[in-house]
């Protein structure tokens, strides 16, 4: 069986699955639209949570949050199921496919056979769509891939039952209700307000304050933990910012694309200007990544390099703070 399903490659898996599943049900929303309405732009610093031997940094909210928020704001209902028994999980998935329902799955990436070796690590909040089964293999639309692919029953079970943090436990989801008339304007406004609220939150681990906290930590790491550890931490920061799925610049460019679309829908020219502003900020994040990469190459780089990186990041934080304040007013 094979459901008529269009595979579209996107930057980020969660927006991509959401956008592709909704398109299948006749609602055409771009990846940036889902991302913006679901308040995908974020920054969080969890210094005590060690991920890949470095503190936890993220430029995005908790996995699943974007689609859940976007669905709620658009009046879409999603059914989500988890299964303790892998056999049951497969049966439920196959039943969906028989009913022509392309189904989203949360999976771990470590055992995804089609990924390059360097990307296989124990991250359990990747998303893909299953849209059929042929010759005993499941037909997979993984939104970060150029092309649709397949996984055997055993391979799919392995990634659906990956273990560790955020274990998927067979998690599958699909839209059950899409309203006839979606109030896009209202949904966009809610999404933007929520983003501004998060990024300007008065807590040290979230938003602009968290960016500043990381920035101030860079020279301290260099002093207390040495160059090697500091460089590894900074490397982790680049990966979270630039890896597949971010669309570049720590998701700032996707957000720029969202604001540009939103400007047209809300007939608000100010948003168009703000789109340019967040694009320029995204460029600065990329410059920041280039500077970090340069620290790797010139090992004997000048001693104040960490102070300079810290300054660049503080500068970005200032620009972002001004940006969210303007954005909040523009809505």
């Amino acid at each position: 069986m094979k459901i008529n399903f269009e595979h579209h490659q996107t930057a980020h898996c969660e927006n991509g699955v959401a956008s592709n599943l909704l398109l299948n049900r006749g609602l055409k929303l771009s990846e940036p639209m889902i991302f913006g309405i679901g308040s995908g732009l974020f920054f969080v610093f969890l210094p005590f949570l060690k991920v890949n031997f470095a503190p936890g940094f993220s430029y995005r909210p908790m996995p699943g949050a974007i689609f859940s928020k976007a669905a709620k704001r658009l009046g879409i209902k999603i059914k989500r199921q988890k299964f303790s028994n892998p056999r049951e999980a497969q049966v439920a998935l196959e039943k969906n496919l028989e009913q022509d329902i392309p189904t989203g799955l949360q999976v771990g990436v470590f055992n995804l056979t089609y990924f390059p070796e360097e990307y296989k690590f124990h991250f359990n909040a990747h998303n893909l769509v299953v849209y059929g089964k042929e010759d005993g293999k499941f037909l997979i639309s993984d939104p970060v891939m150029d092309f649709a692919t397949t996984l055997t029953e055993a391979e799919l079970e392995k990634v659906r039952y990956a273990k560790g943090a955020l274990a998927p436990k067979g998690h599958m989801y699909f839209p059950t209700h899409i309203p006839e008339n979606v109030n896009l304007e209202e949904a966009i406004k809610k999404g933007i307000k929520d983003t501004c609220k998060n990024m300007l939150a008065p807590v040290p681990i979230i938003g602009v304050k968290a960016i500043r906290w990381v920035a101030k930590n860079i020279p301290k790491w260099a002093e207390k933990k040495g160059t090697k550890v500091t460089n590894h931490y900074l490397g982790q920061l680049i990966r979270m910012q630039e890896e597949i799925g971010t669309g570049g610049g720590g998701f700032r460019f996707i957000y720029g694309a969202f604001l540009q679309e939103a400007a047209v829908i809300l007939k608000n020219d100010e948003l168009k200007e703000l789109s340019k502003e967040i694009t320029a900020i995204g460029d600065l994040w990329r410059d920041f990544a280039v500077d970090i990469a340069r620290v790797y190459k010139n090992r004997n780089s000048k001693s104040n390099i960490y102070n300079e990186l810290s300054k660049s990041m503080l500068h970005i934080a200032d620009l972002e703070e001004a940006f969210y304040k303007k954005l909040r007013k523009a809505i």
Partner: protein
Amino acid sequence: MQIISSVFIKTPHFQVKKQDIPQDESNLKSANMTEVVYVTDENDNYTTANSIGWDAKKAALDESMALINERIEEAKQNVAKNIVSPIIYFMELNKMDIPVLAAYVGMWQWTVKRHAKPKIFKKLSDSTLKKYADTFGISVDQLKNFDGTL
């Protein structure tokens, strides 16, 4: 663009223009992949483009892989010196840490840490060893007989 001024370290400024998105050969090639990036065209309108990679992040990824390989090598030597059991070597080889490994074998973290001691490892039953071997995708014999000299 006045906002991109002052403090920034002297780098050629990066611009997300479609014609100059980075196309640096990277690890994506091994899987025949490209990635989507959001870029602006000559009229500052957003569009998407596919990139085969970017040196800046390849550097970060290479650093991370180098660290993993270092940890694998260290674990191997520690097995040879009888400081840790083979469990630690295969854990590192599979890019795991204690919490992830404990989740896969369905044991407490402190139990896994005990099993990482060579003396205790030698007394483990085959059924316990099998849980580890299955997780690592190897046989019980391969796990038992690994002495760090391969």
